[in-house]
């Protein structure tokens, strides 16, 4: 168990670095406003350390062999997001702190409940059912709500949440299990077209289902970002399961077709595209957000204005969709590249866990979860930097948003669970048992 404690000690130390960075940023934000330290600083620091230690201790007890880098990166991203939100809006920061606590609770509960990833595989159709319900829930009259033009919300009593965040994870479980079952079938046979091996049309069912789900989201909920995310996620999982590029190609064709049709049919899609191509001519109305976002990046420059010294509140929705632009203004290129490096490390961690996994389901599941984080980050950062049309999704762990934070902490816990399984399987004595389970 020497290796275990070494891993966990690394995790603890790295995590304390992340906490230190967050605290330092938080102090700077406070000092920019008033020339003395905030009275609640110690409370804040204690809260941060307690949350981190709780998550860390949960891993120590429940997944002792798991990867030691993932949690510190999550803490870093979450911390930098919190500092930025606290700089933008005190009330949101308070609420984000609460949601972070809820996220850590989700993290611990996930580690406790999901003792074996295998168990999830067994209930695939239950998760499919729950996932589909989560997708359509916001459309139901009475509980469904439209906020900022997108019907993504469910309100029960005073609490609003986005079930779509949970749906992503639930559907990834189903897809991983389904594809592991069917992958032999999907990757064999079919017709050859040049170098590409085309799959049998009857096996395209799951892809078409994913496409249908995406279109429903796009059309009914006006949520372009999630539609793009769902579709890219399922296409890439299909590719990973079968290793056949034809699926990617087919997926791309389906996506472009769907995108084109929705561009023709829906005003809001056309607006998104036209403000992407030329935001400057509509800088005062439709293009206001994206233009302000670019001003934020430009004003920040290489080093940024300094925390608390810029004007990121000029950007509408700076705490949610545009949190990355706020970071770009106050922390500059140095800050934005640091966040991108964090995301890259997180994604790298996730794919490494996927590659190390011995069971196909774990592999596909880990790859799917990681892809969620990777693509979602690209969709929103690409949107606010005008690389692609802007679609509103959250930046994992960084943006303000309860549902997103809780779901992402769940993803982190699941990845660590798989990582712990991998390490156990690789341990001498147990390896043979695990290996026989896979290949038996």
């Amino acid at each position: 168990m020497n290796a275990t404690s070494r891993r966990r000690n690394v995790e603890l130390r790295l995590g304390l670095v992340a906490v230190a960075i967050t605290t330092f940023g938080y102090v700077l934000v406070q000092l920019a406003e008033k020339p003395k330290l905030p009275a609640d600083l110690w409370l804040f620091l204690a809260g941060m350390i307690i949350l981190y230690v709780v998550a860390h201790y949960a891993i120590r007890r429940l997944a002792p062999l798991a990867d030691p880098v993932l949690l510190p990166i999550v803490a870093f991203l979450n911390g930098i997001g919190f500092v930025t939100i606290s700089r933008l809006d005190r009330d949101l920061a308070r609420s984000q702190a609460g949601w972070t606590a809820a996220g850590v609770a989700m993290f611990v509960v996930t580690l406790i409940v999901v003792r074996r990833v295998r168990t999830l595989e067994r209930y695939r159709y239950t998760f499919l059912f729950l996932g589909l319900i989560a997708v359509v829930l916001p459309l139901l009259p009475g509980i469904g709500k439209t906020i900022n033009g997108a019907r993504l919300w469910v309100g029960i009593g005073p609490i609003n949440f986005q079930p779509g965040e949970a749906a992503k994870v639930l559907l990834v479980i189903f897809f991983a299990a389904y594809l592991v079952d069917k992958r032999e079938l999907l990757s064999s046979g079919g017709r050859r077209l040049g170098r590409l091996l085309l799959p049998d049309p009857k096996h395209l069912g799951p892809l078409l289902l994913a496409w249908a789900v995406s279109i429903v989201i796009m059309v009914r909920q006006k949520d372009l970002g999630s539609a793009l995310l769902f579709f890219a996620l399922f296409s890439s999982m299909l590719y990973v399961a079968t290793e056949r590029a034809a699926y990617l190609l087919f997926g791309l064709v389906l996506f472009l077709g769907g995108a084109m049709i929705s561009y023709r049919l829906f005003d809001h899609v056309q607006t998104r595209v036209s403000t992407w191509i030329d935001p400057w001519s509509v800088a005062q109305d439709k293009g206001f957000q994206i233009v302000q976002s670019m001003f934020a990046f430009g004003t920040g420059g290489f080093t940024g204005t300094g925390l608390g010294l810029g004007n990121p509140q000029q950007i509408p929705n700076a705490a949610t969709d545009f949190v990355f632009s706020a970071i770009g203004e106050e922390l500059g290129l140095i800050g934005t590249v640091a966040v991108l490096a964090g995301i890259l490390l997180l994604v790298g961690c996730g794919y490494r866990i996927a590659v190390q996994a011995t069971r196909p389901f774990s592999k596909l599941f880990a790859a799917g979860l990681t892809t969620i984080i990777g693509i979602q980050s690209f969709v929103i950062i690409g949107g606010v930097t005008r690389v692609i049309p802007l679609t509103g999704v959250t930046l994992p762990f960084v943006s303000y948003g309860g549902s997103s934070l809780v779901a992402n902490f769940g993803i982190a816990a699941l990845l660590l669970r798989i990582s712990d399984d991998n390490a156990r399987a690789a341990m001498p004595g147990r390896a043979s048992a695990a290996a026989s389970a896979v290949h038996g």
Partner: protein
Amino acid sequence: MDRAIRRVGVAVIVLVLVLVAQLTYLQVIDADHLANDPRNTRGALRDANRPRGPIVTADGVVVASSAEVNDGTDFKYQRQYPNGPLFSQVVGYQSFVIGNSGLEKTYNDALVGRDTALQLKNLPDLVSGKDGTGTVVLSLRDDLQRAAAEGLGFQRGSVVALDVRTGAVLAMYSNPAYDNQPLADHDTKTVQDYFRGLVANPDKPDLPRAYREFYPPGSTFKTVTASVALELGIATPDAPSYPVLRELDLPQTDNTLQNFGGKSCGGTLAQSFTVSCNTTFGQLGLDLGDMFVPGMNRFGIGAVPPIDLSPGAVASIGPRPGSFTDNQPLFAFAGIGQGDVATTPLQMAMVAAGIANGGVLMKPHVASEIRDASGDLVRRIAPGEWRTAMSPGTAQAVAAMMVTVVESPNGTGTAARIPGVTVAGKTGTAQADGGDPHAWFIGFAPAEAPQIAVAVLVERGGSIGSEATGGRVAAPIAARVLRKALGL
């Protein structure tokens, strides 16, 4: 599956690299452009929370200052303009709603202490936390600005006074003027309401007529016509003698060019200049032909005067170069400052100053010095030559003719006389489409050793309307400003 996972991983890395490339573009390559876009109000917002140095006239009157306030907004400082409309068209405003304007914009860095020379000077004070702001000292004088405004009274028009040797603007006022105080307000709605009111006002009080509006210069432009003709050797003050005419027949048309009031006049260039004889100068315009426009360009007409204001001065205009063959009558009209010629009052003041300064036009500037918070000089706005319009000899000849306009009994500008000082000048009564004429006077004093040049424009004849001439309406205002400037 591992191979596919690695490929997906590589794809994500590629996407992140695309983002890094775009961020490098936004935050490094295009950063200055984005940061300085006029629609980006961040700079103005940031400066609104910093101490900001005052703007002071050459004779020590504070025209802009910042005071620490606690008015319930996020802003710590309120900009104050104690002289409001008197200096607004030069000082401009500091506004985080509609952006900065005027001198507040062009000298923003100096005022907030970001000016390089100022920062170097303040380096030793960095530790002590002393006020690092800069003070901008205007070349404008409060007493001259008041003389200009009082001279115009309720009449719409402009007055510009220049130091002939340095190009320093000593007075620049136009009526009506706006109050810059509401535009610096911390309440967005107050600013927007006042600004909308200004834009909607048909009198255009937001328009700094002195440097951003042009008018036909009328006979004041005969100074330019005479200078170009003398410089090119087409005429001397004493020869040839132009025929005495009531009206000049124009080529290519049945129209004629008439003398003011239907009188007959003619004679030498000097005689024609004194009585402002249109037929002679119409003929000169025709004689100059395609050489006329390059001659005007040497006075800066067709170019933007490089003044230290934002928005800056507009260019004055003349006939299209090379258009003489196609449109000869326009050149006859250009000879008397009508037709296609339109000039700003600033440009005409620069013409007078150029003649007074031996033919050299200086770059105009409204600020003269930057000082630090304790009043020590940081840097001086150095005078610079802008254009050479003519030789010193020509300038002297034109100046001599301008003296007769004011000093000889039959001159048109006798109202500009100042006891004990020789004044050189030229009047203008410019016809403008559909309405009373614009009254002009340009000139300088003392004629023997010129110090101050002045241009006065009164729109639509001012208080006496159709009866107005430059000599009756504009010349007395010029005399008032010149007298004040010379301390008499």
